[in-house]
């Protein structure tokens, strides 16, 4: 395709594949990693098609600067694409991206970057960095039709997202709530919540609220409703914290995380903040939980309704749950920001590989500072058995779990029908919520298992690509695993009762 006259032309994606004479394959999350003994890459020839082209950044690309508080010895820098995808890149790549302005050719860029670095970089080397590293990630514009640029597809990510507050509304809400992050307000909230907790747990107790629930289970609806409001307010806390630091929160919504429904706030823009700003964003949700509990305590002072105290206790449980660092809750982001490693789950495979006797040393591990590497490795050592046992249990007992869920839903449906016939509509509503949650758990368990199977198949296909013997081995191993699983389910009697 000919470049548009008068406009700086981009680079051709097709040409990138040709230049490297490689099998065309999807771009992976990490652009390239090599071992020391690997031969140097071949530079694009000086007379290759389009070497004199003037590169330009893709539309909407934003250069965010250095990732602050990084756990890497050489702090990486950040670039954000128009679609919101943030890319972390090494310093030299970032310097090259910074010098691309749509008017400089590779020789001019090389000259400027050489001055920045204090080392000599050639035009061909700049061309290589652009075509092999920046172009596949969608940072530099391609001259041909825009191809699909890679997007992060992280492990254990939120799925099936729906919007509750648009980005604009979330920003308005965040801006309105930012005064809650002023120093004196924070101190007042923290002192007050300590006082309320001391009174509630050491003096008053939760017996009154529990007795109310036992007398009238419908009160659970109120507690559940307050719990949902608390969760939504929690998300507003993240948005407000993000906004207070100077970044723009994205939308607030609801989705499915593993098997659970979950509210979420997109605070991707907080990558640009300092470590303190990111931590404020992370902790904003828990802080707003504290504010919410104070509001409940105030309502209790006015109404003496013990249910409100029960809701405070439930909010504490939510907060504790949020501190879990092994799934993408607040605790995960807090840990990640404390050590300056933005995506801990992406370190699992490199750390495991690095630990193997003949494992490849991955720059994502070797580039980390010692303290960050120790914490990340410890986290990996904890998360692998936890996730493996959780997922392994689910797979091993899938028929039994789903039968149990199905029976439970049937029983709830029966009870709901009885409640409707008895004109106990509130109770019927509680039962209906129960059925919905059970159905969600059932669907979620199947979704998790099929997702796991899909990932394993993709891994097997990638491992055996172009190698028939490996493909045969992978297929045989897959079939053997399926047969063993079916035998286990049958011997356990897990199909009885279906």
């Amino acid at each position, binding site marked *: 395709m000919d470049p548009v006259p008068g406009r700086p032309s981009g680079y051709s994606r097709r040409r990138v594949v040709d230049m490297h004479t490689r099998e065309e394959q999807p771009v992976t999350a*990490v*652009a390239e990693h090599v071992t020391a003994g690997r031969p140097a890459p071949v530079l694009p020839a000086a007379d290759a098609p389009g070497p004199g082209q003037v590169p330009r950044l893709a539309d909407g690309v934003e250069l965010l600067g250095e990732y602050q508080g990084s756990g890497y010895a050489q702090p990486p820098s950040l670039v954000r694409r128009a679609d919101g995808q943030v890319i972390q890149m090494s310093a030299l790549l970032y310097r090259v991206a910074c010098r691309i302005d749509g008017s400089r050719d590779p020789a001019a860029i090389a000259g400027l970057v050489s001055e920045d670095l204090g080392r000599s970089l050639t035009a061909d080397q700049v061309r290589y960095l652009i075509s092999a590293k920046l172009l596949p990630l969608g940072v530099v514009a391609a001259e041909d039709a825009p191809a699909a640029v890679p997007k992060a597809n992280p492990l254990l990510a939120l799925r099936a997202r729906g919007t509750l507050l648009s980005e604009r509304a979330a920003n308005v809400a965040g801006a309105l709530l930012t005064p809650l992050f002023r120093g004196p307000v924070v101190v007042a909230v923290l002192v007050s919540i300590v006082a309320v907790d001391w009174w509630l747990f050491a003096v008053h107790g939760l017996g009154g609220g529990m007795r109310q629930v036992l007398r009238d289970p419908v009160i659970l609806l109120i507690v559940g409703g307050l719990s949902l409001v608390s969760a939504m307010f929690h998300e507003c806390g993240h948005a407000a914290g993000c906004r207070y630091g100077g970044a723009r929160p994205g939308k607030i919504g609801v989705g499915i995380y593993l098997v659970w429904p979950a509210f979420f706030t*997109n605070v991707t823009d907080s990558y640009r903040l300092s470590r303190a700003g990111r931590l404020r964003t992370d902790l904003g949700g828990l802080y707003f939980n504290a504010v919410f509990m104070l509001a409940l305590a105030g309502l209790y002072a006015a109404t003496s309704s013990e249910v409100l105290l029960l809701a405070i206790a439930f909010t504490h449980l939510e907060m504790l749950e949020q501190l879990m660092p092994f799934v993408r809750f607040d605790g995960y*982001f807090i840990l990640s920001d404390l050590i300056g490693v933005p995506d801990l789950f*992406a370190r699992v495979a490199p750390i495991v590989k690095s630990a193997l006797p003949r494992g490849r040393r991955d720059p*994502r591990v070797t580039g980390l500072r010692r303290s960050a590497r120790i914490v990340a490795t410890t986290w990996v050592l904890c998360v692998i058995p936890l996730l493996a046992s959780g997922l392994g249990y689910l797979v091993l007992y899938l028929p039994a779990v789903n039968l*149990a869920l199905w029976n439970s839903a049937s029983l709830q449906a029966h009870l709901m029908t009885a409640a409707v016939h008895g004109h106990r509509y509130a109770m019927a509503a509680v*039962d209906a919520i129960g059925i919905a949650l059970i159905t*969600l758990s059932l669907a979620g368990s199947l979704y998790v298992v099929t997702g796991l199977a899909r990932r394993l198949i993709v891994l097997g296909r990638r491992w055996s690509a172009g190698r028939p013997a490996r493909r045969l081995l992978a297929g045989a191993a897959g079939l053997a695993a399926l047969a063993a699983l079916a035998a286990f389910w049958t011997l356990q009697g897990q199909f009885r009762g279906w």
Partner: protein
Amino acid sequence: MSTVTMQELELETAELLPARETLSCCSHRSGGNSFTQVGYGNTAQAGLLNVSALNGSFDNILSLGSGNIL
């Protein structure tokens, strides 16, 4: 002025970061609020996935309201 080598260039990396999505999960609202998790026999919670299916009947492992309130 020293020259940047191609080996160095190849070690230049770029990595897609996942969207930062803070979550407020309804896990214990879906599990913990069910006051019938006692089930029958020695049921056990499956940790992260919060379902119960070990040793004993699996009836009514997740229920609310007019089920078996503790």
